[in-house]
């Protein structure tokens, strides 16, 4: 091989090596969306969903026990009395929920409906859980059987 050939080949080889080093060292810093490992975003989403599910489980049980309290407190009752008593008991228990999950849900945020089989609580307020790239909103509605 002549000297000119060796020089060109050496330059090409060094350039190739520099390109590899640059590529691997800079690939994480490329502009665009935040890079994450495979499945990282999904895990974040699942964790957010689970956090919301924990709050919903608490609300469902809380409503169930508020209704049981109402039955215990009333000797003979009409549907209207049950609903009124239920709202009082639910409000008392909401205090605990707000304290645990750092929320500010009020009784006024709910619209209660009563039929022959159940009490439904429809919330006008949305709760949200935010983390990196995720803003998860859910309504703390419930339905309990009479």
């Amino acid at each position: 091989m002549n000297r000119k050939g060796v020089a060109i080949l050496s330059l090409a080889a060094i350039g190739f090596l520099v390109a590899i080093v640059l590529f691997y060292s800079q690939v994480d810093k490329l502009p665009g969306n935040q890079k994450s490992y495979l499945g990282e975003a999904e895990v974040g989403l699942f964790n957010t969903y689970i956090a919301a599910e924990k709050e919903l489980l608490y609300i469902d049980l809380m409503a169930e026990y508020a209704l049981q309290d109402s039955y215990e407190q009333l000797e003979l009752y009409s549907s209207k009395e049950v609903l009124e008593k239920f709202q009082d008991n639910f409000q008392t228990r909401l205090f605990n929920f707000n304290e645990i999950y750092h929320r500010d849900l009020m009784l006024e945020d709910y619209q209660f409906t009563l039929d022959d089989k159940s009490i439904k609580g429809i919330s006008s307020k949305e709760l949200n859980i935010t983390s990196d790239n995720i803003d998860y909103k859910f309504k703390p509605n419930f339905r309990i059987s009479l």
Partner: protein
Amino acid sequence: MKTKKGQTEDIFADLIIALIFIVITVIIIGVKSGEHEIGTSKILASEKNTLKNMDLLTLLRSPAMQVNQEKEGLSEVRNIDFAELFSMVYLNYPTEQIGFEWLFNDFIDRGLVSDSLSCESNFKDLITETLGYTSWSLRFYSFTGKQIFECDNLDNLRKYAIANGYYAKFNTTIPSPQGKDIFIEMEIVE
């Protein structure tokens, strides 16, 4: 014009240089891939924990048993889920089961309750069957942080876990009929 020996030396030198480049390239790629692999395996472990955490919530919402509830002279079948069963932990038989006599009597018949919720074989079997894990432990704490209940189907769960593989811990809070909250902590080993 080089001699044959000189030409052989040139080729040998080129091969050495090429080999050095290849080795450096492989090392760079290897290091970067290794970093990525560690990150991915952390995520995989995290994924597993996440899904098992979901299983704790599924367990709490799963029906533990069906009971007959007497109501206004009529008997009706009602599903009792695990969250309801666990939330009975504050109730003591026969003094504090107000409003839950029907449920307590059923629990006693099933061997789930003695004077309060008890960690007996029937209770353990019920959870193991639903959960499907070979090893688990449950601890309940009051809102003051005092441990009020403990049950597991394996002694020294953590020690066993370290020796045998997958281990995870989850928690959540549920209310009780008395208005006192229960912090549930669950550990599992696979």
